[in-house]
């Protein structure tokens, strides 16, 4: 290297010194929160393009914010899906049930009944309302915070709790971390736990549906933080290349555990805008506005079903609680954020809308909330009869080796025999409690 100057000083002494930008959220614990930098347009201001529009003619929708419910609690503008009051009450009921379920399961984890739980508080509309805009047999590829879809689709709650408790009744045989549900009967894909892997899978499913000339479409949900994964890029690319009948829902809840959305690129652009580069129709939606969520998902479903292609939807929302029971957000963000969030709470907004149009009142709301809490409590008790997360004794040991393959090859047969031998060594008198769990 003798023929070259060492270091930067001589070679580039006229050049400015570079510096690395590391994103930093606006507010940390104890900070006073001011969200005035977030642009919140008036409800009803956004036009509604035709579902078969060329994505190049609707670029603004990736940067705007589709809103239907105004501060006056009325529905406004062309995106108003004009749902009848019964449907609105059903939507409110599913959201309230989801919230009651989350409360109970969170407490169950704190009581030691299971290892882990994740609430979706504040984001109920992004799953419940969106799911209501799909057909029941449209295939969904959710992430881990879309319990609202299962509740909306009528999946028995006891199955959810059995899974969370990894008990004898768990259809997944205690193999999965709590909340990683699966229900083929409800067209609900098995939740991975690895992030964003479901997004290109949803596109593949949609491609298959198109290959077979089917009429069903696919929808997937991913957090804004997980859009950083290459899988999400693959999903967008395959979706646009094959014009797949798929909806890519990005739930932007601002936080990926302790990393704010800036670490997924939010300082520079919106998440909806990622669709533009792929030529995907892209909508940015008030994720705390249940009517806007429904309307946007319905628009995308109509588009997909008309063979007009994929849609990317960013639901702009806020994660009102911690990432999971293993997380304490007071360590990294201001507690004021939740109260100051400019888009409010989806359950309150829909409730207030129903009251505003004379189809609901506080007494009925209180009664509904109580009934939801009691239903969850009763169902939890039923599930607890199947056991709570114990010491791995709820399922026969051989089930550990099943479903690795369709058949049990010789090496797994040998290992299963070893596991059973270890159990017999540990419990020579048979399992405690007659094998009904520890």
């Amino acid at each position: 290297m003798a023929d070259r100057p060492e270091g930067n000083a001589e070679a580039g002494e006229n050049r400015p010194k570079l510096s690395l930008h590391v994103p930093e959220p606006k507010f940390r614990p104890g900070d006073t929160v001011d969200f005035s930098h977030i642009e919140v347009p008036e409800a009803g201001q956004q036009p509604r393009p035709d579902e078969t529009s060329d994505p190049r003619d609707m670029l603004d929708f990736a940067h705007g914010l589709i809103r239907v419910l105004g501060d006056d609690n009325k529905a406004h503008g062309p995106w108003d899906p004009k749902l009848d009051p019964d449907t609105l009450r059903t939507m409110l009921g599913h959201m309230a049930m989801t919230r009651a379920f989350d409360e109970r399961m969170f407490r169950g984890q704190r009581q030691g009944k299971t290892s882990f739980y994740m609430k979706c508080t504040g984001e109920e509309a992004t799953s419940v309302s969106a799911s209501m805009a799909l057909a029941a047999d449209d295939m969904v590829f959710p992430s881990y915070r879309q319990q609202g879809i299962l509740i909306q689709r009528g999946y028995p709650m006891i199955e959810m709790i059995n899974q969370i408790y990894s008990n004898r009744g768990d259809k997944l045989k205690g193999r999965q971390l709590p909340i990683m549900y699966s229900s083929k009967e409800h067209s609900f894909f098995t939740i991975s736990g690895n992030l964003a892997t479901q997004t290109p899978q949803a596109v593949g499913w949609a491609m298959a549906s198109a290959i077979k000339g089917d009429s069903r479409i696919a929808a997937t949900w991913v957090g804004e933080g997980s859009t950083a994964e290459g899988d999400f890029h693959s999903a967008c690319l395959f979706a646009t290349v094959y014009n797949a009948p798929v909806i890519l829902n990005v739930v932007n809840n601002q936080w990926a555990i302790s990393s704010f959305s800036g670490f997924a690129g939010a300082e520079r652009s919106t998440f909806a805008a990622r669709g533009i580069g792929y030529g995907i129709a892209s909508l940015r939606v008030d994720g705390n506005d249940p009517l806007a969520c429904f309307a946007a998902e319905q628009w995308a479903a109509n588009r997909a079903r008309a063979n007009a292609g994929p849609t990317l939807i960013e639901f702009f929302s806020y994660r009102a609680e911690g990432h999971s029971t293993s997380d304490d957000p007071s360590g990294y963000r201001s507690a004021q954020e939740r109260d100051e969030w400019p888009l409010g709470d989806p359950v309150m907004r829909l409730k207030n809308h129903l009251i505003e149009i004379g189809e609901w009142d506080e007494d009925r709301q209180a009664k509904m909330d109580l009934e939801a809490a009691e239903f969850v409590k009763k169902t939890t008790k039923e599930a607890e009869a199947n056991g709570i997360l114990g010491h791995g004794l709820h399922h026969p040991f051989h089930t550990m080796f099943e479903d690795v393959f369709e058949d049990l090859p010789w090496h797994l047969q040998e290992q299963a025999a070893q596991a059973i031998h270890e159990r017999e060594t540990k419990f020579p008198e048979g399992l405690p409690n007659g094998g009904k769990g520890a």
Partner: protein
Amino acid sequence: MSDTATTTATKTEESTDRRLNMIEAINDALDVSMKRDDNIVIMGEDVGYFGGVFRCTAGLQEKYGKSRVFDTPISECGIIAAAVGMGAYGLRPVPEIQFADYIYPGLDQLISEAARLRYRSAAEYTAPITVRSPFGGGIFGGQTHSQSPEAIFAHVSGLKTVIPATPYDAKGLLISAIEDNDPVIFFEPKRIYNGPFSGYYDKPVEPWKRFDASVVPEGHYTIPLGKARYATRGDELTILAYGTMVHVVEAVCREKGIEADVVDLRTIVPVDIETIEESVKKTGRCLIVHEATRTAGFGAELSALVTERCFYHLEAPVERVTGFDTPYPHSLEWAYFPGPIRIGEALDKILSE
């Protein structure tokens, strides 16, 4: 044709049987399968109109249409992920990864997704996918077109890994892989696509058509996964190999006049432990040969299995001949390749104990 009749050692040039090279046999397997099952789709880089860079999918798009045989973006993650989604729908995708060296961007979708769908969903969802991919060196492919990453997949619970060594086997094993309801990695030893390889790179390739193992019957037949084949029989020692190396060890044994049980494993997961035990207990000596890098290669697993199960029958330590623990070099390809010298010396050593 019986399994033991597929040895490459026999040559019958005067024959009216249909003879195919391995590319044609793979193409035939895909054709036969697609004709039988509308749910089979093929996708991958350049597999559609062009028919694949090695021509394995030639003519299939024309025959079965663009919605069943199509090109993909250069995105192995996307290819495998789309296949997983299609499998969940009910299709039986057969994606091609153009070179095994390119498979890594798709690893998460293979390891965390395809391999575990059945387990994590308690069999609600499965991944009946066959990922075809040319692998191995010997074609001056440099470090990105020569690797043998089979041990990575062998290490993953829920994946089967299959490696054919002859055209006859390639067809029967590929049809079995496609019909299997679990994800299968199907590595095609591209060095022997056109003819078996003696290990002498400076000698001309003898085309498959001169060998009996290129007799490929028309129509549907299967070779079960998890069943090895004796490429040759002999009492002096057992040689465990797969893919290209089956032919190299056969050639070296012929040259040295050694009578060996050359066991072509054909499937490495699940591996045919019965055949391995049967042969090693008979011969008392075991050489393991693979082209992949040595450390934590599949040979290490084979060596452990043989030692655990046949120790008191062994008359010599188990030996491994492998590629070196370096990337596959371009100009020094044949110095890297576990060729006749490395194999010959190991044979001498193991037989002199």
